[in-house]
């Protein structure tokens, strides 16, 4: 038992680069690729953010911070930012609660649990575009399955895609549904790795199932929850694109902007539909700030609140 450990220590001690240039030499290929595909475009974007530019015309006019101030003062952009925030909070909290619940149920020793798990995981295999199309068909107010059912049972036909509240709700639910599978996979794996003796001890000591879940299991699941919160935030911010594009096209128009237009979709519209590259670059810069803030919070919260056990 001791010997192999010692050898590992020895090799590790010997594994020191001679000279400072060597590690950089080995890093060079990755750095080059990162530079060409990540760093340079990012810098270009920051530069472009200071210009009024049109992709098709190839025009560029330096305006300094005007793009950013215009965005921050624009009621439309503010509304989009607020909508994105609400969307993010709703999809992340509801999505995680729901997946944790489902994963907990699916991990119970019941007959056919394997099939339940399979069915729960399958939406993950669908591309967002397919998912969007499915939802669009289901919620077509005249011929969709949902309204045909509601129509025959309660004789109501909700306007899912042009009533602002319903459309927003629909996109939230669709996004949660789309994210469920991913979250459930992680939760299922973690639940199955929970230390059985601790749970049994709690049960022997007379804890109710609810107490076992909230007092024992849930704290033990904080590391994975923490990981999922941040992956879900990022996917709410960036991956909502295909779903909204196909399901609602960012509409319906409400107040100053389309109610399901989120930051990424707005950026896409300005940059690649209306070809206003400068304004789009400024939005990208603002989103960069947002991501930097989220990452900062991730480390900050991660240090304090998460129970890593051991």
């Amino acid at each position: 038992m001791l010997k192999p450990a010692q050898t590992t220590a020895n090799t590790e001690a010997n594994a020191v680069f001679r000279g400072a240039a060597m590690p950089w030499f080995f890093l060079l290929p990755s750095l080059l690729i990162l530079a060409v595909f990540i760093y340079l475009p990012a810098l270009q974007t920051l530069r472009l953010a200071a210009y009024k530019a049109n992709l098709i015309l190839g025009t560029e006019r330096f305006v300094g911070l005007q793009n950013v101030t215009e965005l921050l003062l624009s009621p439309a952009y503010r509304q989009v930012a607020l909508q994105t925030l609400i969307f993010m909070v709703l999809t992340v909290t509801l999505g995680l609660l729901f997946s944790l619940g489902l994963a907990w149920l699916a991990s119970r020793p019941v007959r056919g649990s394997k099939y339940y798990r399979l069915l729960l995981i399958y939406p993950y295999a669908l591309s967002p575009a397919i998912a969007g199309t499915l939802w669009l068909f289901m919620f077509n107010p005249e011929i969709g399955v949902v309204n045909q059912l509601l129509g025959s049972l309660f004789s109501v036909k909700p306007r899912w895609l042009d009533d602002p509240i319903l459309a927003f709700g629909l996109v939230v639910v669709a996004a949660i549904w789309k994210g469920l599978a991913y979250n459930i996979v992680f939760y299922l794996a973690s639940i199955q790795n929970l230390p059985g003796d601790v749970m049994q001890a709690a049960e022997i000591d007379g804890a109710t199932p609810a107490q076992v879940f909230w007092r024992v299991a849930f704290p033990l699941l904080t590391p994975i929850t923490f990981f999922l919160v941040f992956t879900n935030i990022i996917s709410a911010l960036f991956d909502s694109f295909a779903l909204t594009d196909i399901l609602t096209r960012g509409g319906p128009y409400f107040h100053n902007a389309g109610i399901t237009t989120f930051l990424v979709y707005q950026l896409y519209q300005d940059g690649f539909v209306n070809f206003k590259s400068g304004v789009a670059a400024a939005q990208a810069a603002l989103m960069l700030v947002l991501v930097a803030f989220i990452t900062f919070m991730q480390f900050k919260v991660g240090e304090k609140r998460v129970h890593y056990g051991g």
Partner: protein
Amino acid sequence: MKKIMLTLALMGTATAQTTVEFWHSFGDAKRTGWIQERADEFNKANPGTKVVPTYKGSYNDSLQATILAARQGKPPALVQIFEVGSQLALDSGVFQPVSSVKNVDFSDYIKPVINYYTIGGKVNSLPFNSSSPVLYYNKDLMKKAGLNANQPPTTFGGMLDACKKIEAAKLGVTCFGMSLNGWFIEQWMAQQGAPLLNNNNGRTARATATNLDSAAARNIFTFFKTLQDNKYYTYTGKLEDWDGSDAIFNNQKVVFHITSTADIGNNGEAAKKAGFQMGIGVLPIPSGTKRNGVVIGGASLWIPKAAPKAQAEGALDFALFMTNTANMASWHKLTGYYPVRQSSIDLLRKQGWFTQTPLQLVAFNQLTRTVPSPATAGGLNGAAIQTRKIIEEGVQKVLSGQSVDAALKEAKARADAALSEYNANFK
């Protein structure tokens, strides 16, 4: 990648051959196949030229790709660009007027079609797939509602009267269900002889404002207000949802539908499958106005400036071959797009096409009877993609209960702002 390798290989072996890259936006097998067949025929007849058609994504994507390729000096020789992108393509400075590549006789092209693409006296691009909106109606449902199925409404007033009868008949269907699309609003402006944009629809000088405060625009918005107040109108709720509205019509949930003539074929088949008789009528227009005709919609073929002379000429030759009399007639039969040449129409007539498919005749008359004017030549505007959406959102606000005045005022302010933002690029 494969394409590039292929091109490289070809350049290596057959140096005498000119390769003409043709980028288009038809993703479906039917249309892509038709284009490939024409290219094969052309290549066989012209051994010196090799036309390579490629599907390059949506109109928006291929416009972008062309501009970026042109900046690097490697543009395709021929590109299909949608009509709302015309001013943008023109302003990009990347393209040359087709009439300057070689002398072409454009007299055979249908007037309203060639008018759209003639700017400053020059034909900038060659019309290819053109269409206009028509009224689709469900004859069976009309009969059930006690309406004359051979006389569809031709005006807004006529539509509303028919809607009243349909409601009274309690068929459990809605009267009217087209997709909410700025293209139709543009058409209704043209029908009333009203330019959508100032400076003669942006044709005498750059457009600086929209005419959304005109009586013509008010007529259109008021129509939607009346439809909404009486619950005569339905759509999926998503803007520009062509497929969604087609599906609602084909499932017999509405009696009337408006969409492009290019869908006569597909919707006709769907109607047959669903077991109802479909009729086609002229685009209904505001009551009490003279019918001025339609603006053509669709796309045209552009040739980049940076294409070498041999390529540019090859591209134009191919474009002219693809849109020649016989080919345009076959294109029309396959897709329902207008044959853009007078001689093709004559050919179709001689073949008895219009007696076999009387539905298509309505669409034709609508186009050929168009009165040439700046209004029916269509609006030119570099921010057209954006202003079209703004107008759609304006109508959507009316449908959600806003007053016509407020919706028009807001739409005008937003569209005008988009125009001046675009125009600021040229300061």
